């Protein structure tokens, strides 16, 4: 199922991010997905060599999750493939019955564990969305006809509501919508007032937006994100909250409470929530319980 159908039905769409390991043992990922995510989120984003670190592929992992009865979202970045490989992988996704895409430009190669690699960026998030739309219309980006019935996807992208240059983000968001983007997941939000203000401006595009959350695990992680991660800012009072009860924070409970609170404060302005738990998948059910979001009936 395409998650755009869920948005159209007016569902509050819940997704979570999972990262393939560096290696081919997916047992742990699959077990966690069944145990903690299957009845709590509608779909699972599968990252594409996240942070430029080489891992098992997103598409193969999506297929494994689909075979497990879960609904995957195939994340595709433009860092590692040129336009031929990107379009080919999009068709391969259709062949495997993967119908949800999240289309990204991608981190630069030097951020990861193969800094010597050639960065590709032949297309970018906007032109990749356009390329997928062209495939849906029966043509590749060079204008050649594609045989048979064209594929159909839910085409998603990302936006950073708490960016320090939110006007530039909105311009890019508009370009993505114009190119064919049908839903957005945001970068991690810690400042509800910024998110709400952003949504007031983003509403004009008429495209659903899922509030993005990164579970704040500890103070060090927050400080790291403040210094290094674009579009993410953890305010001082939240850092103080994490510092206040060290045991509670260590147990992960402060991070869970913060996420639940952020959902409650932003819920009325968003069309869903996307949780990036970075290995803390087991805490997602608690976050959703605490935010008053009931379990779902799994869709495939």
């Amino acid at each position: 199922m395409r998650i755009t159908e869920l948005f159209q039905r007016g569902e509050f769409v819940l997704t979570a991010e999972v990262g393939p390991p560096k290696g081919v043992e997916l047992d742990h990922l699959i077990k966690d997905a069944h145990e903690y995510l299957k009845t709590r989120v509608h779909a699972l984003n599968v990252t594409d060599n996240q942070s430029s670190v080489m891992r098992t592929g997103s598409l193969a992992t999506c297929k494994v999750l689909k075979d497990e009865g879960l609904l995957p979202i195939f994340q595709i970045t433009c860092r590692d493939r040129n336009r031929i490989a990107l379009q080919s992988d999009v068709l391969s996704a259709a062949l495997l019955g993967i119908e949800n895409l999240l289309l990204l430009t991608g981190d630069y190669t030097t951020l990861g564990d193969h800094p010597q690699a050639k960065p590709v960026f032949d297309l970018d998030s906007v032109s990749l969305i356009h390329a997928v739309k062209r495939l849906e219309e029966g043509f590749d980006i060079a204008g050649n006809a594609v045989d048979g019935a064209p594929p159909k996807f839910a085409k998603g992208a990302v936006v950073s509501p708490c960016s320090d240059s939110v006007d530039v983000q909105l311009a890019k968001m508009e370009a993505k919508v114009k190119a064919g983007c049908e839903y957005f997941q945001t970068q991690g939000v810690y400042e509800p007032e910024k998110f709400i203000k952003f949504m007031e401006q983003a509403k004009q595009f008429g495209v659903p937006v899922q509030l993005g959350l990164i579970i704040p695990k500890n103070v060090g992680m927050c400080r790291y994100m403040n210094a290094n991660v674009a579009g993410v800012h953890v305010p001082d009072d939240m850092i103080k909250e994490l510092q206040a009860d060290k045991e509670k924070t260590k147990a992960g409970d402060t991070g869970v409470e913060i996420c639940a609170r952020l959902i409650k404060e932003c819920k009325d302005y968003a069309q869903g929530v996307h949780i990036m738990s970075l290995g803390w998948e087991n805490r997602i059910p608690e976050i959703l319980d605490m935010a008053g979001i009931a379990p779902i009936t799994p869709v495939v």
Partner: protein
Amino acid sequence: MLITQLKSKETIEALAQGKTVIINCHGCKEVYFAEHEADELQKDLNGVTQIITTDYICNPDNLKLQLKKHTDVINAADTILVFSCGVGVQTVAALFEGKKVYSCCDTYPLPGFQGVTPLNVDCGQCGECYLNGTGGICPITACSKSLLNGQCGGAKEGMCEVDKEMECGWERIYRKLEKLNKLDNMKYEAPKVRNYHNPNAEEPTI
């Protein structure tokens, strides 16, 4: 070496809006520039108040000196058309922050020496000059990822994710377009996709 090939006559005519000053750069010996064709074309353009032919406009200090005697006419102009490689266009655009500065050439590479440009701006010699839509800031060389459709979102406080000493090229482009009241430039009909197979450079004729 490189070729600065004239854009089409229709394109250049559309760029010449209002009072127009033309700057030709005949600097590098390493550049093949269609001087005669440019002269002919420039004769037919409307609204031209001054044609300035000079050299090494890629050097900002030299450029300032060369243009000194034309200050009044440049200040009164609405548009500056530059006939040079991409570096020259960027230097002129940086010098005249609030003016519409347009490139009338596409720059193609040729084997051999690339000319002398002791600068922090560069021309990627992509053969499909984007400077006219980006406020004279090159997305190929000012963006670490050479993106054509806006920022990647990786910049933090305006600085690039790849090189923290470098400003985000697309934030610079956005701010420049904002200043020129040209933000609509970012609303393309179709996303831009670079052509890496660009055989359209004409062979220099003898």
